[in-house]
């Protein structure tokens, strides 16, 4: 049977050798702030209309801020629709997304059809931009067509 002094010594040795985190791990946060919607504008029936990622007035822009690696997934609609069900087909290509610095310089081209892993750093804000192509036909009726694009940011654990 160990003495009380012996137990105290043993516990002290265990605590000294056991790797205990110095503080609770700070939670990693990522923020998403929608800045601008994807706007094809006023279209005539029967024409294809593309918005490039360089079209500053019509491309979608989302501000991202945080630290560390994040996976960006975009849920892309297949069409714009009116409330009565009329549709305009939408198409997205591998060159229809990019990550920009807050100053506007391109950090990385992104394929919006894939999950893209990017590195965020030092809580610096970067911009996710999205373009696309709307295809009307001569039968496309006049009206307002809309859809929702969802952005899912996953901050994987370490």
């Amino acid at each position, binding site marked *: 049977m160990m003495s009380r002094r012996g137990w105290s010594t043993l516990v002290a040795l*265990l605590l000294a050798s056991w790797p205990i985190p110095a503080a609770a791990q700070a939670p990693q946060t990522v923020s998403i702030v*929608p800045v601008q919607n*994807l*706007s094809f504008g006023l279209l005539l029936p029967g024409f294809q209309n593309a918005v490039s990622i360089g079209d500053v007035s019509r491309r979608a822009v989302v501000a991202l801020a945080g630290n560390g690696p994040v996976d960006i997934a975009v849920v892309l609609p297949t069409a*714009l629709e009116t409330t009565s069900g009329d549709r305009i087909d939408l198409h997205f290509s591998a060159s229809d997304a990019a990550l920009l610095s807050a100053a506007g310089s391109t950090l990385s081209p992104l394929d919006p059809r894939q999950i893209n892993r990017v590195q965020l750093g030092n809580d610096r804000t970067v911009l996710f931009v999205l373009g696309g192509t*709307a295809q009307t036909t001569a039968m*496309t*009726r006049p009206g307002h*067509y809309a859809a929702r694009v969802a952005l899912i940011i996953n901050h994987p654990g370490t």
Partner: protein
Amino acid sequence: MNRSIRILALLGAIALPSVASAQSITGSINASADIATVFSFGAPSALNFGSVTPGTAATASGYIPLSRNIGVIYSLPDGATTGLLTGPSATTLQPTYTCGVGATNSTITSAFTSCNSTGNQLTLAAPTGVTNEFVIFNGSLSAAQTNITPGNYAGTIRITATGN
């Protein structure tokens, strides 16, 4: 000894670091487009009787194209004086017209109720897509009508198209 093991196990449980968990957030943006209303007259083709020998009948046709992707109501704001021709010394000449709309510039498929009355003369529904049609006027002058003071007789056929 068993007590010692239990204490050691308790110390180990307390010292285990917490497991980090993945964080996922979502946001959304809107995508939109507006399809324009197409509704415009094109260049007209004049109704020209040409050089008419006095005392002989004459006919002529003219049209104006309209492109639209909405419904339309056609009316004639001048009513009874639609397409009235005025010549020397204010002499007037009123041709008789048949009028209406067609898919080509030569054949009327939807006739106006009247070619010399005010008010709505023809209402057409919205097409499934952009459609190009022609408002056609066919005019005729009788032999008696052309037996008048020689000279140039001219006028305007005014047609109003209202989106519907």
